[in-house]
């Protein structure tokens, strides 16, 4: 089984630079998306992950290739960190048929079979039962795989959160619930939506193993992720990981952010996961200025290539409109 046997992240220079690269890829990719949105190259809803990159980045190294992932409409970072090609993601943002979902889904519905990326679910809470089901399938087939479900703290108020956590704990399903607690559900602050604001305690009420971790610290997230995945893969039941984080940008492109102060945003930006990890690598001498420059150069180039790829992409013919509503039947 391809699962990492050791649950501690090895902060080799190589691994460290990879973590930094992943976070930077997400950041630069999304900064470009915001730009493209104003140019109307990308339409619909666009939810940026900027500020939260450490979570998807720290989580993915703990997974094996066969593990399944279910994410939300704020999933570009997860798709990139999981290994969906940036070209395919950018083309999907454009709605081109070279996109990961052949353009049908757009920003909120990135799906990718090769990396077991099950979307891209835009109904808050809607992904949790599905993730539990994937885990059920793995367990019933005696497969060593794990299902990982990402969702925001706002989803914790939904009935499906309750039903899914109970099912997972009751049936000891191999699923890791990763709650990205960025303190707001659109404009609704945590304390306005939850009587119990300590999210990871909720999991305990289902007798589920849980912990809370600093979601702005990629190393802490990776360590926690390895603990969680290791626990789950060893058949000990589900695991709930709350990652405390913050959304630096608006909820979507239509958000005046009347609900929070500039100060609050600025304070959190001091904890920017990329800057923070970068500084640490610098001071600890693991990485040097030249490394950062190379990284920036490479990532900027990759983003540029993805834009070129998407621009060069093609529109699916209108004649194919009804495609993929049903699976073509094998001619019998």
């Amino acid at each position: 089984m391809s699962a990492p046997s050791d649950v501690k992240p090895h902060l080799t220079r190589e691994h460290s630079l990879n973590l930094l690269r992943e976070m930077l890829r997400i950041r630069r990719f999304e900064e470009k998306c915001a730009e493209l949105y104003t140019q109307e190259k990308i339409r619909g809803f666009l939810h940026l992950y900027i500020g939260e990159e450490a979570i998807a980045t720290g989580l993915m190294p703990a997974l094996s290739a066969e593990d399944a992932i279910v994410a939300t409409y704020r999933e570009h970072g997860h798709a990139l960190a999981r290994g969906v090609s940036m070209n395919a993601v950018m083309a999907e943002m454009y709605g081109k048929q070279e996109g990961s979902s052949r353009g049908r889904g757009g920003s909120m519905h990135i799906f990718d079979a090769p990396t077991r990326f099950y979307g891209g679910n835009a109904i808050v809470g809607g992904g949790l039962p599905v993730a539990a089901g994937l885990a059920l399938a793995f367990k019933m087939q005696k497969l060593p795989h794990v299902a990982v479900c990402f969702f925001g703290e706002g989803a914790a108020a939904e009935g499906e959160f309750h039903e899914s956590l109970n099912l997972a704990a009751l049936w000891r399903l191999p699923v890791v619930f990763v709650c990205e607690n960025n303190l707001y559900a659109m404009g609704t602050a945590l304390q306005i939506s939850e009587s119990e604001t300590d999210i990871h305690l909720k999991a305990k009420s289902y007798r589920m193993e849980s912990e809370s971790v600093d979601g702005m610290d990629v190393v802490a997230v990776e360590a926690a992720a390895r603990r969680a995945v290791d626990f789950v893969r060893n058949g000990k039941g589900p695991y709930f990981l709350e990652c405390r984080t913050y959304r630096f940008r608006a909820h979507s492109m239509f958000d005046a952010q009347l609900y929070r102060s500039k100060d609050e945003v600025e304070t959190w930006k001091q904890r920017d996961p990329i800057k923070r990890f970068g500084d640490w690598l610098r001071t600890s001498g693991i990485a040097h200025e030249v490394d950062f420059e190379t990284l920036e150069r490479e990532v900027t180039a990759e983003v540029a290539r993805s834009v070129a790829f998407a621009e060069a992409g093609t529109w699916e013919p209108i004649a194919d409109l009804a495609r993929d509503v049903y699976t073509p039947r094998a001619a019998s």
Partner: protein
Amino acid sequence: MNERATSQGTLTYREAVRAAIREALQRDPHTFLMGEDVGRYGGCYAVSKGLLDEFGPERIRDTPLSESGFVGAGIGAAMGGMRPIVEVMTCNFSLLCLDQIMNNAATIRHMSGGQFSVPLVIRMATGAGRQLAAQHSHSLEGWYAHIPGIRIVAPATLEDARGMLSTALEDPDPVLIFENVMLYNMSGSMDATAGAVDIDRAAVRRSGRDVSVITYGGSLWKSLEAAAALAKSGIDVEVIDLRTLRPLDDATIMQSVRKTKRAVIVDEGWRSGSISAEITTRIVEQAFWSLDAPIARVCTEEVPIPYPKHLEDAALPSPQKIEAAVHQVLGR
């Protein structure tokens, strides 16, 4: 549920469904039945009685009262390699999992650009007639037929009760099977070797020249009863069993209407927006010029089903109402 005594060779609709489930579980190790009280209790309508002993609690899986949770889990399990049969006790409770059905089961294949299909079978009981009052007497199959991405079947005969489940389990996409509660005790004899049936075509259950009565499920038997009575007064009624409500078999419907030039549509949904409206409209679109009279429909009155027998009967389609409608379209 009292089982009618069934003599050698004969069985009930309930037993036919049970036989189909048993065969499916014997045939495919990836198939399992999941739902409320399907195991220890034996199923709210005793359909799965005895299967727990035969297949064990993993494959005859009792769930908590969490409709959205276990239907969503069925979707995930289906994508994860299993072949779930999810039983939602009755369609009255399916409103609680409608988000999972419409926003996930029906859309994932499309949203993912054809990467992920959801081979899920959902069974539910439907229909009124047992004096269960306003919250337990819905007939929603026709309403569900509005949703692209799923298939809707409604077995009316023993052969279909048994065969449609087998066929549904060969379908790569979600299939919802609606079993009318008034049919479970219906008994008859059936070829022991009966298996999968074609579900693409409607069936002419009685052929006639004067008028086409188009129906399905529990109403089929009311329609046949009406047809028999009308035959006495020399009216030759053709009765069509739609069998599959989505997609509708337009060809069989039009062929019949072009022959009889008159149609009465019978279904147990509330009149406004019931599937009879869709069928009427398709006849108007495809066979308008062959019509010799307006199409009539016999549906359920627009009232939540009342508890008292006389009021419930008055609210539902009946052979008498069907006869009256036939006389109306025949003008005699």
